[in-house]
């Protein structure tokens, strides 16, 4: 039998069949790939129209019939598209397989009917020796390529893990030189004799001067040392260092930091912080300058809704400035700054990214940062415990303590909920208090490890204003206008008092008195004792959102339009 017999007609037929089958295969493949690409872009089960309709339904209260009807229709189409597509793919795959089978079978047959005749020793085949030489050269080239590829990969692939481990080793081994080149620590006493942050030293709402005035009259000016107009509005509170008062303000036009003479009320300077990014959309209730400034005694720090963080010296000269990334936040940036004299702490918990950062006060260099996992509008508090200082942060779920030197998490307790704005409170010794509307108030007893929950209370809870604690008592003021005093050790209600207007400003404990200002601008002064006793109620004559600053014989109150210095 001649294995090389030619049957040209049969061969030609087979070739034509193969061609047709190949075209079919090509068309089906293109269709399937196109279908896949289309499906990548449009996921029928997560059809945007359907999702939008579902949202719409969720936001209506009555459950509108028309929307329901639309959802049902769209859902039906989505499912039909999904399953129909799967069916199409299966059919396409089977068609592809059959087409390929026919094509290859026909090609094999055509080869059988029109076999290629054997040829002998092609003239262009390189000889044995040349081939070997060529091989050696190519092999050497390949080896060089492999080495180069390896080197490239070795240097191209960088390890974040190595960096994190290096950092932790650095932090563990040489904290001393790191601090030496950074700013010098400020004595705690000096911080305490000023009002360096929101709610005073450590952000705890406890004043160390107990000589604040208890009577004044804004209208007549009795007991009011001075009153100055505030150049730019902002929800933040005044801070005081020595004989200077600092505040910030911002709107779509610009971001400003300004300074007043504490004795005369003269505006000493106003510095514009130029934003390096486009200003984000913020809620009117938060504005562009909700976070209160902080100071380490040498510099003042301000942050705005744009994520722009700036350090200025006390004369208003820019020391450093950086943008921390525009926060994605439905209301805007709310958390205020806090400094321990060496480091500036920024709680940066937003929708996409949550972290707490510490910067060197002098240089602005990041000292550490630690990832967090929930959004928050609360301001950190810095407490002194037996085991050393702890930085306490609130978020949607947890209270978490960090080591202010390294950023290492010390403990965390899940006891919060809702959208948290109030800061933690501290009894000065061993109990941390947290509270938020839609969760509860909790007292956490520090014991070295994870604190135990002493008691919880869930009746009147704060929404914006932060609670404050004395050594035996714990005070809450609510947005509905209630003021509650609880026993710090047991959580028993000592007294409850209802006022006309809600509180946004936080109460401050001044010796054995509590100062609290409601939204209508009425300053309530009451005794910080087991029984409710009002000392005075004084009208400021304008709305007050900010927490006042307490210095020796003086109170600085930021109203909506004016800054007041109460005292002599």
């Amino acid at each position, binding site marked *: 039998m001649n294995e090389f017999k030619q049957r040209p007609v049969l061969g030609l037929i087979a070739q034509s069949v193969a061609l047709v089958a190949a075209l079919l295969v090509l068309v089906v493949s293109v269709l399937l790939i196109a279908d896949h690409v289309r499906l990548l872009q449009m996921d029928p089960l997560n059809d945007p129209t359907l999702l939008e309709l579902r949202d719409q339904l969720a936001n209506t209260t009555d459950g509108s019939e028309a929307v329901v009807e639309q959802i049902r229709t769209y859902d039906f189409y989505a499912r039909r598209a999904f399953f129909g597509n799967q069916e199409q793919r299966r059919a396409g795959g089977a068609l592809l397989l059959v087409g390929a089978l026919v094509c290859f079978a026909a090609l094999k047959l055509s080869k059988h009917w029109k076999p290629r005749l054997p040829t002998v020793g092609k003239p262009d085949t390189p000889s044995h*020796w040349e081939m070997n030489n060529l*091989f*050696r050269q190519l092999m050497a080239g390949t080896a060089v390529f492999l080495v180069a590829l390896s080197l490239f*990969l*070795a240097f191209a692939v960088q390890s974040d893990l190595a960096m994190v481990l290096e950092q932790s080793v650095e932090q563990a081994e040489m904290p001393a030189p790191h601090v030496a080149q950074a700013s010098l620590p400020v004595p705690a006493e000096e911080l305490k004799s000023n009002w360096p942050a929101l709610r005073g030293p450590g952000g705890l709402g406890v004043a160390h001067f107990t000589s604040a005035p208890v009577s004044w009259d804004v209208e007549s000016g009795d007991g009011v040392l001075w009153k100055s107009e505030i150049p730019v509005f902002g929800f933040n509170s005044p801070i005081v260092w020595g004989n200077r008062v600092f505040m910030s303000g911002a709107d779509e036009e610009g971001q400003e930091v300004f300074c007043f003479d504490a004795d005369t009320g003269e505006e000493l300077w106003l510095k514009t912080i130029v934003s390096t990014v486009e200003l984000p959309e913020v809620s009117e209730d938060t504005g562009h300058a909700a976070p209160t400034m902080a100071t380490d005694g040498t510099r003042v720090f301000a942050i705005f809704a744009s994520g722009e963080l700036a350090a200025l010296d006390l004369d208003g000269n820019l020391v450093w400035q950086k943008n921390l990334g525009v926060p994605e936040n439905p209301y805007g940036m709310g958390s205020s700054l806090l400094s321990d004299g060496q480091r500036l702490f920024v709680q940066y918990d937003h929708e996409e990214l949550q972290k707490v950062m510490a910067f060197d006060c002098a240089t602005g260099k990041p000292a550490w940062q630690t990832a967090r996992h929930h959004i928050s509008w609360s301001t950190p508090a810095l407490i002194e415990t037996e085991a050393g200082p702890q930085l306490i942060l609130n978020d949607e779920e947890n209270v978490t303590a960090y080591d202010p030197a390294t950023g290492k998490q010390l403990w965390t307790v899940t006891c919060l909920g809702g959208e948290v704005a109030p800061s933690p409170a501290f009894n000065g010794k061993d109990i941390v208090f947290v509270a938020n509307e839609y969760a509860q108030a909790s007292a956490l007893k520090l014991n070295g490890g994870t604190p135990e929950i002493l008691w919880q209370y869930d009746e009147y809870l704060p929404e*914006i204003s932060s609670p404050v604690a004395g050594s035996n008592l714990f005070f809450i003021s609510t947005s509905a206008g209630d003021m509650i005093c609880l026993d710090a050790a047991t959580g028993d209600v000592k007294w409850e008092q209802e006022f006309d207007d809600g509180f946004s400003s936080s109460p401050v404990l001044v010796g054995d008195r509590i100062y609290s200002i409601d939204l209508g601008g009425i300053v309530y002064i009451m005794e910080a004792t087991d029984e409710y006793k009002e000392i005075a109620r004084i009208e400021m004559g304008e709305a007050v959102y900010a927490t006042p600053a307490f210095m020796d014989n003086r109170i600085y109150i930021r109203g909506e339009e004016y800054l007041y210095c109460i005292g002599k």
Partner: protein
Amino acid sequence: MKRYVVPPLGGFSRAGSLWTSRLKAVLHTLAYVFLFCGVANAEFRFPMPEFASGYEHPAVHTPIPSNAMVGWDVAVLIAALALASFLVLKRRKRREIFLLTMFSMIYFGFVRNGCVCSVGSVQNVMAGICDPAYGVPLTVLIFFAAPLIFALLFGRVFCAAVCPLGAIQEAVAIKPVKVPPAVEKVLSVFPYIYLGLAMLSVAMGSGFLICQYDPFVGVFRMGASFSMLIFGGIMLVLGIFVARPYCRFLCPYGVLLNWCSKLSRRHAVITPTDCIQCGLCADSCPYNAINEPTPAEAPEARSKGAWRLGVLILLLPVLTALGFGVGGLLKEPLSRLHPTVQLAERIAGEELGRYEGTNIESEAFRASDTPNEELYAEAVELKAGYGRGGRWLGAFIGLVIGCKLISVSILRKREGYEPDRGTCYSCGRCFKYCPVKE
């Protein structure tokens, strides 16, 4: 002021107002349930009801995996290997070999979905060696060993007609062009690299690379990830012109078969009797697997060749050492094959603020409450392992390159046209081109 989202706590109670109306009955049920299965019930939010209507729980459909074919697979494998050996060595008919190849493609491929195949079984065996706790089923052991034993006896008859991956490529090899022999030899280093990588991956526990990048299993199953299908499609289209591209330039199991086949007791021959050196067969082989007779006159002096060989033999340890050194540098990129290292890098990157938010893996990890340090420690240990493994991988590749250089530089005496025992797939194409008949 603020927008409030009331958390849906306690939003789900059993039947709303119906619940209270049936309080008495329910209390009764509760008491009953707590009495009889108090402990088991403690973890559930809702008590399991007692039905008054005599309703019974429907049964759950739990079909057991089909086990019937497993014994058959082994039997078919052995029978196919034996038949292939017979066809290649005795019958010497290309068409019959091809029919068996098509049978294997249909049975091991489309019917049995291409799993487990001998190519992948290398990894199971390696896993069995490295991890004493990993049990290798007998079927897999036979799938690994039988083709190798047959290769030791009769050459690569497994590739010729049994391997489903080889078969599908054999089916599409319509118009094979000849790859220049020098290029072919250089590309044949890649299966060694692939084998080395796959073994390293298994030894370190980062998964079965060969299965993840199997180009044809998606075709056999009529479904796979898009990229796998595209890879398979490209391989098949390429296979029309470059016969068996996977077998020649990637298949890691082919490396082992190549070694065994070099030692084969009986290998397929082109001519049944003496070669008349017509050269017709050399043209028929699409795999460059037919060695020509030694050329009569050498264009270079014998001494020059010997000197070069000496240099290359001395180069062998140098190349191995170079590979050893370079391989060690690959610690970082290689370790990224491992999911734990990937996760640790991701978490570390998140801590550094390098990523916006989390991904599925890091979320699952954070939900597990494992401390970061534990993960980091594990990743560091794995990386060290990859560092060591990378060195051995590099040394292995250096050694292979050195050996290949030496092997082409040795002058072998050949009287006639012979199949290369290592690379010949015993496909039988050359049989019909040989004019010498028995």
